[in-house]
């Protein structure tokens, strides 16, 4: 018995457990285990294998869930396919009503879901109650709006089909919402596999779907483990895979879906920097760190896990951080005064423990607050600060996914940016400075998809979330997120199968060079602003459809690609130039192309056998298209999202950096120009591989480039065997995005090779390059990635 008198002395908080009797009763009714939710019904839990679902806070069994097999996945996909027929035909308004009903019912069940999530995952009730579940209903509300607006806001787009969605255990219901809400809004149907550690809120969500009368098969939930997910990824009836989880699994999925044509979005790991400048509000930065790394036990993909602090204030900040850590409370996740709950599983706890030990071994100083009392049972880990960490330390490189902060210092803003970007990942970043000039400058230079200024871990359905680099691609939330669940109507024009080109370097015994009525011309490669002989020293014959050899082209190899990429990497200022400046150069290209139109017409006629009219038309298209993207250079605007009050949330379209472009055989000039210009206009540097069969229009083009003030390295042209060069481009870690429009290049090979640095690949397919479907916003969108910068304001 506690006496008021005693508490008056101690002034302790005392226990404040959240009641869980409703959830316990619900679990009791499912004592027999959970089946899958397929076609609007739960399958028999007794059928097939099942697995244990436990509460990480005490290790006790909560329920058993079915272990989905390939047959279960097959039945779910079949149900989703049937449901797609009618669901995709519903009016946006009808779909909006369902999404609205889901949002409302999640709100009505919010405490139930919060308690269940806490029991299943181990995260504190404060977070599920105040953060996870409110964001879940917010996400459905937001997307009810998109369903309603889809037809008017996305003309020319249609749903993708059946979406396979695989979500992690760190925000189980929130990740479900991020996946299901946009998919349904856009008219898709889904098969979702929750993580095996945390399937329960997804199953409760299935019951809510049934409750609101969502048509059968629109949402299917198949529980299971890695093999279940693999079956879903491999299923031929699935048109799109959306995955959130580790970079390693993301890579496996990229490889598994290679060449399948499945649309893919990946939200992967991170090692996000948290940068504190000496003019920051330090006490607030400390609170920011609490929200960054001691939120959700640090099991957050965008956790600010790398503290970068300006040298002069480092010790002061560390002292404040340590003092603040003493106030953190680790304990029962259901206690309303708990800051840090249980780590999701023993495996995860072991991983965190061993990484911290490794850090210590490598010389880091490890601090854990003395006030923390780790509960006797369950998987708990104390909040940890590691100082004396260097960029080369293991703990500074790998994602720990636990309540562990590693700290390093920097001297100047430039060094802060360099350290921040010194990672394979690029999910998020947090910048603390009261100087808006410095903050925005650093924000613009960071390679990350989400940047918070003087804040961290702010989320809203209206803003896009997603990474750069090996943190994945695609966005979730906002307008940019919806594209992941939409397909554009066009790109269905059938192109001709690419003809096999014999790229022999030997002189032809039969080919007859046309009579020499002009001086022989040598087509070289164009690398780093200079004409370059191919590294191989070989050239191959370019033969027109009549079998006549029309010239020789360089047989570029992997070293030529390497050189081109190195030159491109140095030409970074292109992306920083004004859009007006880039437009001017594109106009200048068009001007020079126009001046030499006849020469290009003649080239096309001899090389491809095109009629005079067709050749003239193609050159005219190339000029027009260059104008088109010159015009667009300063008009591919970002957005200001409507998120929280007194926050500017900027969605900026940023170039990828260095892009590889594989051009089609059809329309060797117009195709080349149609792909290179949008990429250049948006600020990318481009390595273009022209048509292997008809490369000479592209090699003529470098003379235009030479005379149009294009900075060295911005556009390189490497001729040769496109299929071979494609592999090198797809493999190259410096190349951030790749477009493959060459019918002779195996999409599977490119997809597979791209999994190295997880660059997005656009296997664009054939189209009529002279028609408007070969230009437009889709090309601009594919040459940029959206960076969301959150700028709170107020005085």
């Amino acid at each position, binding site marked *: 018995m506690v*006496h*008021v*008198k005693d508490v008056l002395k101690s002034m302790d908080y*005392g226990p*404040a457990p959240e009641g869980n009797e409703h959830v316990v009763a619900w679990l009791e009714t499912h004592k027999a285990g959970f089946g899958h939710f397929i076609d609007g019904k739960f399958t028999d839990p007794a059928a097939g294998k099942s697995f244990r679902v436990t509460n990480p806070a005490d290790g006790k069994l909560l329920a058993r869930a079915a272990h989905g097999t390939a047959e279960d996945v097959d039945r779910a996909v079949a149900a989703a396919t049937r449901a797609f027929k009618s669901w995709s035909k519903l009016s946006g308004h009808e779909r909006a009503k369902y999404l609205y009903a889901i949002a409302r019912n999640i709100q009505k069940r919010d405490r139930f879901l919060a308690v269940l999530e806490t029991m299943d995952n181990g995260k504190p009730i*404060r977070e599920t109650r105040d953060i996870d579940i409110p964001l879940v209903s917010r996400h459905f509300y937001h997307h009810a709006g998109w369903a309603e607006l889809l037809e008017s806001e996305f003309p020319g787009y249609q749903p993708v089909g059946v979406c396979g969605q695989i979500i992690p255990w760190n925000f189980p219901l929130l990740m479900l919402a991020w996946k299901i809400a946009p998919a349904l809004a856009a008219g898709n149907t889904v098969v979702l596999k929750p993580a095996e550690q945390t399937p329960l809120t997804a199953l409760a969500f299935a019951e809510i779907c049934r409750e609101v009368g969502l048509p059968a098969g629109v949402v299917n939930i198949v529980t299971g483990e890695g093999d279940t997910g693999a079956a879903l990824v491999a299923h031929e009836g699935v048109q799109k895979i959306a995955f959130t989880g580790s970079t390693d699994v993301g890579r496996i999925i990229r490889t598994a879906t290679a060449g399948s044509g499945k649309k893919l979005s990946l939200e992967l790991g991170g090692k996000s920097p948290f940068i504190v400048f000496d003019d920051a509000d330090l006490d607030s930065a400390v609170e920011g760190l609490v929200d960054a790394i001691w939120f959700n036990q640090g099991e957050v993909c965008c956790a600010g896990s790398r503290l970068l602090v300006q040298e002069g204030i480092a010790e002061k900040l560390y002292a404040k951080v340590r003092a603040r850590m003493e106030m953190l409370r680790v304990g029962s996740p259901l206690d309303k005064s708990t800051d840090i709950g249980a780590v999701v599983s023993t495996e995860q706890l072991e991983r965190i423990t061993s990484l911290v030990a490794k850090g210590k071994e490598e010389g880091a100083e490890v601090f854990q607050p003395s006030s923390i009392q780790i509960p006797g049972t369950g998987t708990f880990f104390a909040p940890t600060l590691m100082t004396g960490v260097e960029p080369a330390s293991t703990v500074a490189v790998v994602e720990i996914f636990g309540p562990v902060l590693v700290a390093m210092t920097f001297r100047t803003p430039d060094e802060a940016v360099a350290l921040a970007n010194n990672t394979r990942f690029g999910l998020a970043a947090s910048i603390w400075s009261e100087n808006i000039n410095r903050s925005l400058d650093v924000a613009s230079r960071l390679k990350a998809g989400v940047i918070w200024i*003087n804040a961290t871990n702010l989320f809203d359905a209206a803003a896009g979330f997603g990474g750069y680099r090996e943190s994945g691609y695609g966005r979730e939330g906002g307008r940019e997120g919806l594209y992941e669940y939409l397909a554009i109507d066009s790109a269905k024009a059938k192109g001709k199968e690419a003809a096999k080109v014999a790229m022999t370097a030997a002189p032809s015994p039969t080919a007859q060079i046309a009579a020499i009525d002009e001086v022989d011309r040598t087509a070289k490669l164009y690398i780093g602003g200079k004409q370059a002989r191919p590294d191989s020293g070989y050239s191959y014959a370019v033969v027109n459809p009549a079998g006549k050899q029309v010239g020789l082209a360089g047989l570029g190899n992997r070293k030529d690609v390497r050189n081109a990429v190195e030159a491109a990497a140095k030409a970074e200022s292109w992306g920083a130039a004004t859009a007006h400046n880039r437009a001017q150069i594109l106009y200048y290209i068009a001007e020079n192309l126009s001046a030499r139109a006849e020469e290009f017409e003649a080239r096309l006629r001899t090389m491809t056998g095109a009629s005079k009219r067709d050749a003239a038309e193609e050159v005219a298209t190339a000029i027009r298209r260059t104008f088109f993207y010159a015009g667009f250079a300063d008009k591919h605007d970002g957005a200001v999202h409507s998120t929280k009050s*007194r926050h500017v949330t900027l969605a900026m379209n940023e170039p990828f950096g260095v892009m590889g472009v594989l051009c089609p055989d059809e329309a060797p000039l117009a195709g080349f120009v149609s792909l290179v210009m949008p990429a250049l206009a948006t600020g990318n540097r481009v390595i273009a591989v022209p048509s292997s069969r008809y490369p000479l229009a592209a090699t003529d083009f470098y003379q235009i480039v030479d005379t149009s003030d294009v900075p060295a390295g911005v556009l390189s042209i490497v001729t040769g065997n496109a299929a071979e060069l494609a592999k090198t481009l797809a493999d190259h870690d410096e190349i951030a995005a790749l477009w493959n429009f060459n019918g002779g290049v195996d999409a599977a090979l490119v997809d597979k090779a791209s999994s190295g640095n997880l660059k997005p690949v656009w296997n664009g397919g054939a189209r009529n390059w002279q028609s408007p479907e070969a230009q437009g916003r889709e090309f601009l969108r594919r040459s940029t990635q959206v960076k969301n910068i959150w700028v709170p304001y107020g005085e």
Partner: protein
Amino acid sequence: MHTTAAVALAQPDVLRNSQRNAGTALRPEAFESIQVNLSAVERRAATLPTRRTVKKEYQAAWLVKALTCIDLTTLAGDDTPGRVQRLCAKAMRPLSDTLLKGLGLEDEPPTVGAVCVYPTMVPAAVKALKGSGVPVASVATGFPTGLTPLPQRLEEIRYAVGEGAEEIDIVINRALVFDQEWQALYDEIAAMREACGEAHLKAILATGDLKTLRNVYKASMVSMQAGADFIKTSTGKEDVNATLPVSLIMIRALRDYVEETGYRVGFKPAGGLKTAKDAMNWLILMKEELGRPWLEPDLFRIGASSMLADIERQLEHFVTGRYSAAYRHPMA
């Protein structure tokens, strides 16, 4: 310096503030480069009360603690000695015998922290509170605006002290903050402190007038350097009175000051705190940001008039399990 700070902040056993703030020389370098980010401060303030929950016996105890920190206040144009006497009666015996018994506090019945009145009401309050141990606090220095001449303001302090006030709630000259005239502000407050003598000085910053949180921080620091025993948010007469974000900034200043000098200074939010829930929020703020010592009336006061009644009702609910009505509790 850090050693002092660590001791001052961390010792939970030290429940009494042993050493009165002696002030320091004016040291603008301690506050001029302060950076405060409003949105971040608001986020912290908004989530603080959601991160801690206090229930049952603990909640009852915390509410009793809040009660002992209340400066039970009447500062109205229609105050009379009779009105003040009624307030004092409540101040000395805020909880009924039934409640005391239910709480197990019959042996040590709590009183409020002080009674706070206008200078001319001090004699009546002193008389009414005689022997109770409840001190009388008086506002002074041209409250609430502070715009009377300095000699008159100082004289007002001396008057109130002479009549038996043990605590003086002064108001600072806001214009000096707007113009960043720190020396002038420091000199005025130092003079007031001198006029107080043994009486403790609470410096009211009128944060609703100061507007920016940087101003609040700077005014807090100047007040402490000039020797304030407490810093207090508001007179209760500004458009915006005590808020959690403003309190958080003042508390950060307190923390920085104790780290630098070793002196613990008290904090008093005033104006707008009306409910038991408000009391809990501010107690959580104090405990989380400053630690256990700041949960005692020598370092924490709440300027309020209606809060006590709400606390009584909550305590009655704790004792009886039934929800109470205001009319069942004696008026202040």
